[in-house]
């Protein structure tokens, strides 16, 4: 007899799916080291911690400047510690990696139209890098020009 409602288990003639003894293979805890691209993804996720660290570091700098000369000198002493220098160096490398992977991924998410025409994704990606260069140049000019 054919079931009248194969999606419901309430009817007396409900269809019962055939469940043979399926083999389920769980994902290994170490899946992220089994493939280079997975590892690159995990590094990208990890880079967010360093982004957060630089935000905290920058806010601490702003607060030190606001509190006066003594606080600023104390911040400089803290920043000159080997451990902090090392952390900032590793952090910088992760930030660059974060930015590059972000900009490389951006054209996949951002579809830009000019009129009816869709801009090529390469152009969208290039615009991000151009923006990055412009901002970096302005920051460098402010920092170096201030001396």
């Amino acid at each position, binding site marked *: 007899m054919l079931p009248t409602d194969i999606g419901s288990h309430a009817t007396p003639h409900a269809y019962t799916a055939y469940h*043979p003894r*399926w*083999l389920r293979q769980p994902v290994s805890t170490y899946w992220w080291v089994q493939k280079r691209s997975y590892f690159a993804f995990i590094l990208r996720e990890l880079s967010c911690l360093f982004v957060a660290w630089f935000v905290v570091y920058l806010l601490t700098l702003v607060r030190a400047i606001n509190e006066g000369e003594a606080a600023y000198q104390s911040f400089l002493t803290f920043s000159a510690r080997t451990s902090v220098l090392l952390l900032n160096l590793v952090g910088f490398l992760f930030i660059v990696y974060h930015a590059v992977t972000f900009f490389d991924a951006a054209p*996949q998410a951002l579809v830009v139209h000019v009129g009816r025409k869709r801009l090529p994704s390469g152009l969208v990606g290039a615009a991000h890098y151009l923006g990055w260069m412009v901002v970096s140049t302005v920051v460098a000019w402010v920092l170096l020009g201030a001396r």
Partner: protein
Amino acid sequence: MADRIRLRVGRYRPEMESELVYQEYEVSFDKEWVVLDGLNYIKDRIDGTLSYRWSCRMGVCGSCGMTVNGEPKLTCATFLSDYAPGPVTVTPLRNFPVIRDLVVDLGDFMRKLVRVKPWIVREVERPLADGEYLQTPDELDEYKQFSMCINCMLCYAACPIYGLDPKFIGPAAIALAQRYNLDNRDEGAEERMEVLSEHEGIWGCTFVGECTKVCPKHVDPAGAIQRYKLDAALASIKSYFMPRGV
């Protein structure tokens, strides 16, 4: 000139095994032979008990997806000569329960696919007498890429997020939802968003990007998901600043 190569095939026979075991076969092959040809050779000439799915043999039906040397591949589009001198290891697609040998159960995807309504939704259907819903080439180009999906499930097999959280609606279902959202004849974007904005929807994706890399039809499911996220975020911001709409 025919050459020979060893195929190391994952076997699971529920009446005999409780885990995947490997069986080796040596097959002769020509340079035009794909992995599926090797499996067909085994089935026809060596071991008729081997189970696997296939149909069109030309990258259209999406039935013959398997894991070849650790990578999700369409076996009808994967040449044996690329793996010479071998061996070539063929196992079932990852992240799906195995029914038998290389055959996996795709029921989970089928149930999820229906939830995103992969068809044209109209609030009011025009009468047939009014003719077709015309579309310009530019309007077609907006969604054509996503319409190339053949449901081969390579993207699900490559996605570690789906492997870790089977509730995640997954790359192909979202790409197919986007295919209809970007179709100017469709009016179902809001209904789909209800499903896709769930935690297991678009926000479950952490953009590993492997789905796009393994897609044999260049659908770019990862791109579809990120576009969806951007649209959802913009809609949310818009509703915050303009609660009564434009």
